[in-house]
């Protein structure tokens, strides 16, 4: 069996609004292996959520459009599949955990019903008792007493709601879990619990996970590999050790790592990355980071940089290419 679960190849996604076309993803490529935990890091607006929604083909209708590229899931091209195929995939083989647990549960349905709905949709042949038993079991696994399944979302705290969302995402034992900032809306102690829970359940079901976050700490804690996303592209990809413990980094990654305050030194100031993220309405000629990059040359502004690999560690930058900058 092929080891690759998901292959995204030169994916381009645009949002067409009344004023302008927003280029959300530009030649985005990513490979996810079975059981792999990959972190997608980048600042707000880099295109991380867009990627997750593209995989599920849930981009906002009429506005979001995949213009070119390919998304292969178990070697099947998803972009050619009819909607009915995607219905069977969503929630069953690929599920998603959303950023804000406060708003991602339906306020007028009991949490048990909302988890049960996944089974009703994807396992219509199971008997009522079997389904209920499964719901009870997943509630137990995520650490919520099963008798609370008759309650409504507003009766739970944020962390518990996120546990319910995780229960919903995992009850069908999907092969791929898209976790879109699952801990951002939670406070730090709850964050750690939720990450721990996701780790446990990931081991149990051996699902691959794409963890979308802007928190490097969460990535270092949870993931095997990291893809740094900037301006709708992967600018650096590699194992966690290669990214964090390496002097060879993309200038943007370096900037991100420098943003983390160091507990041991007494630096008076943090080191933010200068400038702002480029306007996504403009297609960039050269490197998308050139305007903010301290090492930028003339070439960076005119020629798109190549992905330079050293083993599995890839950096999208002229600085590391053979010809040099």
């Amino acid at each position, binding site marked *: 069996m092929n080891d690759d679960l998901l292959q995204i190849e030169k994916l381009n996604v645009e949002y067409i609004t009344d004023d302008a076309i927003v280029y959300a993803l530009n030649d985005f490529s990513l490979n996810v292996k079975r059981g792999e935990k990959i972190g997608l890091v980048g600042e707000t607006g880099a295109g991380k959520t867009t990627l997750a929604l593209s995989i*599920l083909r849930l981009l906002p209708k009429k506005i979001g459009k995949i213009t070119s590229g390919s998304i292969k899931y178990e070697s099947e091209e998803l972009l050619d599949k009819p909607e009915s195929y995607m219905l069977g995939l969503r*929630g069953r083989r690929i599920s998603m955990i*959303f950023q804000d647990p406060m708003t*991602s*549960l*339906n*306020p007028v349905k009991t949490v048990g019903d909302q988890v049960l*709905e*996944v089974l009703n949709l994807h396992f219509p042949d199971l008997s009522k008792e079997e389904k209920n038993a499964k719901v009870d079991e997943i509630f137990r696994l995520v650490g919520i007493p099963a008798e609370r399944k008759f309650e409504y979302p507003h009766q739970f705290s944020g962390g518990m709601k996120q546990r319910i969302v995780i229960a919903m995402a995992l009850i069908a034992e999907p092969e791929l879990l898209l976790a879109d900032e699952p801990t951002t809306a939670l406070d730090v102690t709850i964050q750690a619990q939720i990450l721990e829970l996701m780790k446990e359940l990931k081991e149990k079901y051996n699902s691959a996970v794409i963890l979308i976050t802007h928190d490097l700490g969460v990535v270092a804690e949870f993931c095997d590999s990291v893809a740094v996303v900037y301006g709708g592209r992967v600018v650096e990809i590699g194992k966690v050790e290669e990214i964090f413990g390496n002097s060879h980094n993309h200038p943007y990654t370096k900037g991100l790592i420098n943003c983390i305050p160091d507990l041991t030194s007494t630096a008076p100031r943090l080191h933010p990355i200068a400038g702002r993220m480029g306007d996504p309405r403009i297609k960039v000629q050269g490197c998308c980071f050139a305007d903010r990059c301290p090492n930028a040359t003339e070439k960076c502004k005119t020629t798109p940089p190549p992905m330079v690999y050293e083993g599995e560690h890839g950096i999208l930058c002229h600085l590391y290419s053979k010809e040099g900058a």
Partner: protein
Amino acid sequence: MLIPVIIAVTFVLFVILSFAPGDVVKTILGDEATEEQIAELKHELNLDQPLLIRYARYMMDACRLDFGNSWTSGYEILPEFSRRLPYTLLVTTLSVLFAVGVGIPLGIASAIKEHSILDYGCTFLVMLLASMPAFWLGTLCQILFCLTLRWLPVSGVGSWRHFILPSIILGASTLATMIRMSRTSMLDVIKMDYIRTARAKGADEKKVLYHHAIRNSLIPVITQIGISFAGGIGGAIVTENIFAIPGIGVMLVNAVKSRDVPVVMGVIIFVTIIVGIINLIVDLICAVVDPRIDFAS
């Protein structure tokens, strides 16, 4: 809550009626009455007493369910009101049912098919209905459907067919509100995160709509139904006069014209109570639809 509302409503009304121009005594006795006759009738109706005392007396009687007799026609108010109320309630209820039954599906459909011909058509209809006053729309419809096409009777209450046009006319502005409210509400709901969650679970558009969107989108609309129902009873005054329906609207208008204070007071108290009850029912329905509403609080 209802009791302070009734006291406030009746007191304000009592004061306004007392200071309103026009003299009930002259209306009853005519222009040729002598000074003694006028004084005698004033004493009989307690009009020679101070305002606060008259109000207190009236309310004491009202508490014993004695609403008195009409000053001008002499009929007892409570039985007359009970005889007329069913007509008003029937027309109002039918109008709300019409507005809800047509308005909510249209509103939801135009939200789902936003920017479609249906959506623009509904917007046009809403503008039209909201800007046409009932007396004018009613008269136009009477001319078209009753006189020209002869489909429906012009006025009166002989059969069920008599109620079709009044209910539609009375419901017209409510219909506009319902279409607009349910459209807006639905547009809000389908942008919610939990709708995206439902799609990500693998639910198709039909299930997303029926299992997740509609119930949530109805919550604000139901509250509006209660308000519209109360407004409908007020609107019935105009509609009943156009279509000659012997409801409380006609009774109230005649009483106001002749400064018949006990009738006006009685009708308003009953209407206040009815509106209060309707609001209570609406609140109960809201609590059933929306689990976040807690009876205890």
